[in-house]
């Protein structure tokens, strides 16, 4: 039913989305925590910076990433001095682009979840002898569990559906940067509408099932958390 190229693209997409989601949860959680707790004057600017990918058209973001990753761009300078060469047209480059692009979709639900905890549980934990890092792991993270759930789902879904950035910095290399969305686009552009339809249908069904299962799961866990709090 699917060509070899399609299958390669499907697995590449799943691998990319999983990697990006994991990285975003690890990086995004402390960032969201800082944004939720800080009184710093930098809170506004940093929050706005995180939200920028929501505003920038993906191809524009992709274009500037292409510049940044290039031999004269800031990221390119760093990767070259580390002996990694330039990262455009590579899986690693794609991961970097996707992390930036999906960042607000992970940081914002986490920030909301952390803010919803309020000061009190953390103050209680402090009086019970928990250091700031201890409080983060023993109180904030478990209490923000529904937020982590939403963040993971949105980050994953958004990465699967990502197109503009990948198109710009990917270079369309099979098994490396040619993800499903690009593959569908190529089919459409080549007037291969049948192949495009099959792949698009698969993507829709898959995404629907993922979203459906997590939303029903989330409802359950939210009920639990809500009734704990009351």
């Amino acid at each position, binding site marked *: 039913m699917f060509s070899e190229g399609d299958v390669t693209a499907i697995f590449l997409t799943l691998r990319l989305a999983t990697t990006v989601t994991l990285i975003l949860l690890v990086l995004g959680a402390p960032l969201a925590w800082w944004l939720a707790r800080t009184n710093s004057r930098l809170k506004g600017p940093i929050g706005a910076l995180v939200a920028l990918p929501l505003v920038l058209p993906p191809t524009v973001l992709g274009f500037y990433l292409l510049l940044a990753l290039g031999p004269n761009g800031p990221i390119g300078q760093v990767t070259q001095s580390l002996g990694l060469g330039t990262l455009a047209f590579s899986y690693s480059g794609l991961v970097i682009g996707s992390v930036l692009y999906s960042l607000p979709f992970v940081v914002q639900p986490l920030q909301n979840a952390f803010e919803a905890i309020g000061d*009190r*549980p953390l*103050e*209680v*934990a*402090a*009086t*019970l*002898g*928990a*250091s*700031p890092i*201890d409080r983060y792991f*023993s*109180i904030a993270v*478990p*209490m923000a*569990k529904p937020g982590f759930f939403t963040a993971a789902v949105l980050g994953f879904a958004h990465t699967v559906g990502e197109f503009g950035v990948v198109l710009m910095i990917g270079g369309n290399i099979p098994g490396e940067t040619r993800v499903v969305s690009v593959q569908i686009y190529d089919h459409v552009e080549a007037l291969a509408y049948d192949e495009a339809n099959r792949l698009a249908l698969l993507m829709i069904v898959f995404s629907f099932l993922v979203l459906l299962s997590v939303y029903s799961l989330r409802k359950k866990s939210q009920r639990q*958390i809500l*009734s*704990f*709090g*009351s």
Partner: protein
Amino acid sequence: MTADSNTINIAIQHRPNKSRVQTFCLDLNLQLPGKGITAIFGESGSGKTTLLRCLAGLEKMLGGEIHVKGLVWQSGSKIKPIHERRVGYVFQESSLFPHLSVEQNIDYGVKRSPVMLSKPNYEKIIELMGLYSLLERFPEQLSGGERQRVAIARALLIEPDILLMDEPLASLDGRRKQEIMPYLESMHEKLDVPIIYVTHSIDEVARLADHLVVLQGGTVMAEGPLGEVLANTDLPIKLGEDTGVVFEARVAERDDDWNLLRAEFLGGELWVRDGGDSLDQSIRIRVLARDVSLALSAHTDTSIINRLWGRIEKIHEDEDRAMLLVRLVVGEVRLLARVSRRSAHQLAIKIGDEVWAQIKGVAILR
């Protein structure tokens, strides 16, 4: 300021960031006893909670001194982090961690405590707070009173140098309050930890406190042993119908015929309803000013059984313009009597006169 190992010394001048009133400033200098319950009493907005938060370190102060039983928690800009102070804090509303069971909530502090808690001590507190049957439950499955008991046990089990309680009963209804009060009283009797108890309820003060600090607008209006402060007619805070005194007494005799107890105190004795207290037990007695009337001679032809002979120390305007507040010295204790201006005029009483105080009602607080 002396770092006494048996007192709690506080010097604070602090303007909270989040204060609703821009000009509010907590400005006080206190030396509190290192044992028993000190009540911080005042209206809302008087700075009670801010004081507690400053003590715990939850509110960051740029300067100030906090010395707890010889330990320096803050000296100027040298601040000991909250999690390194051994401070038990019970918040007004339920503050249990929703994702942990009762036992896990309690163990949260125990695990992080630098001192090993002895097992008997652990069990003593679990029993004191009546938690044995609740350990497996989650906070959502508890009543408001049960949650506060868990919170208190959790705070006590880190063996704090001081226990801070911020209106722990305020979020509970009348019945739940009555349910939890005995736990607080037995805590007072059986544990050594000094407690600072914030409240705006004079009933809780009368029942629980040994020492009283009255706050208004961020400054200390009165401070001292409970009996002294309550008998202070100059108290700026008007208690109205609740004006009265509290003193300690000892059960000296039981009269089974009339179901009464004779309570002796330094300066006299009172017959009180037999509440089942055993002989020689120490009890706390509260006499409200409105329940005390004055007479120049001893009347035996009344229904009143308690009469005390005392000397008028002070006559004070009452907030009710038809009434006067009269302070008597009865042995070592002070009594307050609230009498009408007209009666005072007819009796022609003045400072130094000796009168009979007729006491209509006496309450045993504990």
